[in-house]
């Protein structure tokens, strides 16, 4: 529980920084230009370095996890996706994994049971919440593109319109706003309530959720409560995008909190567990073919080792073998 508190306090502290910096010290230029640019730079450089560091280590062995029948005899139906033997199979396996979280979909809970010993129950809720969470985030990021483009790409407009399907109140409450809040609440509660997950959770696990929650909440506040001049924000965003910075005038401190938290999230990304977003593409148990007996796989550092050769071995056992009438290589041994 102490880890949860640390994470909460840390998040509050982060929120106070822009409130203090802009509200009291009036550092608008610093918080609207320097922070976003440097955060994005850290994000970009950090992410590239992270991926380079992964790629710089070779994958020495072909270790796919086979979740289905191998391809062997012609009359046995092999599992094309679960035990892929070519690039198309790999593509399908990765596609399903990345777009639909397939491994998570398989999840089931193991429950001790007094008379039946064990019970396995399907656990689709976690999958559903995870997938809703990730897709909502994606749509939200996508929706923000309308701040960076003039004219707004039609696909972004279309997505926004779908998001605003239920026209409740003005401005419309968006689907993703609700879904992402419910999902974050679920993920947070799960970490707190489920004893196994609580046991393994680190400060950073709670922190990421609090951080995302604050980003989303400030975003919602900006939309519904502390309304900002959207044209002013757009001018600011375009300014950043076109390297022609502009300091927004008609926004409140809530905007600066939102901007600062998003910047922090970007800068934190390459140093946190959030890198799973990129790492999943490289996972060797999923992205390699199950064909290591068909095509030789090469290990770049496959160095020679000291083995015991047949000759050394026979030297020790030759007499014994001759006595037992086992064929040997060297019949006559010079003594």
């Amino acid at each position, binding site marked *: 529980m102490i880890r949860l508190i640390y994470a909460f306090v840390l998040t509050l502290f982060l929120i106070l920084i822009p409130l203090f910096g802009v509200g009291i010290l009036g550092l608008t230029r610093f918080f609207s230009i320097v922070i976003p640019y440097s955060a994005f730079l850290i994000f970009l450089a950090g992410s590239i370095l*992270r991926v380079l560091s*992964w790629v*710089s*280590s*070779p994958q020495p*062995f072909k*270790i796919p*996890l*086979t*979740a*289905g029948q*191998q391809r*062997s005899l012609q009359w*046995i139906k*092999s599992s094309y996706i*679960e035990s892929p033997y070519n690039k198309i199979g790999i593509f399908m396996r990765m596609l399903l994994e990345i777009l639909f979280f397939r*491994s*998570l979909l*398989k*999840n*089931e809970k*193991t429950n*001790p049971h007094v008379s039946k*010993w*064990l019970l396995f129950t399907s656990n689709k809720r976690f999958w559903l919440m995870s997938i809703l969470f990730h897709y909502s985030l994606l749509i939200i990021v996508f929706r923000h593109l309308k701040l960076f483009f003039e004219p707004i790409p039609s696909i972004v407009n279309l997505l926004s319109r779908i998001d605003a399907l239920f026209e409740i109140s003005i401005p419309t409450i968006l689907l993703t706003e609700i879904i992402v809040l419910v999902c974050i609440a679920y993920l947070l509660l799960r970490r707190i309530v*489920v*004893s*196994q*997950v609580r*046991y*393994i959770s680190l*400060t*950073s*696990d709670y922190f990421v959720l609090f951080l995302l929650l604050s980003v989303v909440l400030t975003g919602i506040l900006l939309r519904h409560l502390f309304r900002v001049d959207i044209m002013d924000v757009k001018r600011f965003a375009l300014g950043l995008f076109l390297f022609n910075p502009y300091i927004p005038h008609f926004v409140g401190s809530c905007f600066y909190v939102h901007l600062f938290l998003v910047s922090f999230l970007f800068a934190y990304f390459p*140093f*946190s*567990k959030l*890198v*799973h977003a990129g*790492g*999943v593409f*490289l*996972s*060797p*148990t*999923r992205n390699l073919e199950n064909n*290591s*007996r*068909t095509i*030789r796989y090469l*290990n770049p550092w496959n160095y020679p*080792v*000291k083995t*015991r*050769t*047949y000759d050394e071995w026979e030297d*020790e*056992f030759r007499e014994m073998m001759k006595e037992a009438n*086992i*064929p040997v290589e060297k019949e006559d041994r010079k003594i």
Partner: protein
Amino acid sequence: MKKEIPPQMNLSPKDENWMEKKAEFKKGTYCYGAPLKHQNYLGLPNPREWQPHSEDWNLPENWKDIILQGMKDLLEKYRSFKLFMDICVRCGACTDKCHFFVGTGDPKNMPVLRAELLRSVYRRYFTLPGKIFKKFAGARELTEEVLKEWFYYFYQCTECRRCSLYCPYGIDTCEITMMGRELLNLVGCNIQWIVEPASNSFRTGNHLGVPPSAFKETLDFARDEIEELTGIKIDIPINRKGAEILFVAPSADYFASPHWYTLLGYLMVFHEIGLDYTWSTFASEGGNFGLFHSYELMKRLNAKIYEEAKRLKVKWILGGECGHMWRVIHQYMDTINGPADFLEEPVSPITGTRFLNAKSTKMVHIAEFTADLIYHGKLVLDKKRNDKWVITFHDSCNTARSMGILEEPRFILRNVCNNFYEMPENTIREKTFCCGSGAGLGADENLEARLKGGFPRAYAVNYVKQKFGVNMVACMCAIDKASLPVLLDYWVGGVEVCGVHELVGNALVMKGEKERVKNLRGEPILEAEKNEEDLR
């Protein structure tokens, strides 16, 4: 010792800071240290007599530097390791998938936490936030207590890969455990049950340390036993140059029970189809305990298979029923000791089938080979001879999740017996539960851990015993055959264990055989029918 009720399992760990909790070396849960003699024979680093339960592990002076340098090397060599250190989000999908966690309730047996044991140290010494924010970033100092904890938990993982199936990023605890054991080896912390068989295997060619003369004697004994059962005198070629096929099996097959009956099964099939093959006294072991120790040791022990195939001038290699042996052959052998360009693409001399899936490694699994024989009608089989048994099939972790050989053994079983029932679907095929004794943990001194770890498997067997009256578990792994009888005796009772080829041997109608009244175990074949008559 029969247990009707399972232990009071508790899968809800109580709140505590795991980083500060020490590993407790309770008798019955850990393996003994490796004997000095065998450490020296293999030339392992920092050799010494040492036991895990002693207070002082006599670690080398600079052990911390050795571990950190070793970790750096492994991170540079294995993308899997580096990636798995970085991308876990601790979502908890794997927590209750480990048989050791289910059986012991020890939270550090949750796969994610097993990896966190290494990850916490990785963060402290290899990441920026960990170096700066220390424990606030989930980082932990490397201390002797941490090293002891590593030893305890990396030798309480059977590298079965079940958790990896459920991980959304495919994080593989087997890789993590392998890295952990590589590191422990660097400071001379190894276990007897791995190092001794490995050293035996290096010297004599097999884990059990069977010298060539005794190897021949046991095969002669098998020949006599088959003659007694069938009236047919078969030929068992050893070290025969120019044979078409080299046959390699785990050594337990010719020196342990119930493996022995599987051996009889192989020999009968080979004789019946007139296979041109040979055994080898040098490559008298397919199993490879090096896999449970380090890359180097695995490679050193595996080298003899190709070397012997070359010396004997065979065309290709056939491999017996074994789990981890097949992980090495399927996913490692060609890479570490190939290319096998002196061999030919495997073709069944009986059916003409080309084993295209093995065209580079040139080694075929006996279940693939026999399934092909049966499919082409090359074996005459009398299923009734296995009627005494109601059979289920236990998929071995390695062959299921690292190879995908799922249908071949089932096809064979359906053709050699009448009563075959599957265990619950959450516990078979790729979701199979480990026997609890794999990856070098089949020792006697850690029996408590083994029985607890094997509990989920025993549960599933108990289930089919209650439901269908199952009294025989068939499997294709030498460790299973050794450990399941103990496990099932303890939890279930009245269920025996056999290899797939034992059942093939029973059902096989051989040309010129006398009336078969006994099965390969020397028990009357018709017992089942007699019992039924008695009941009436």
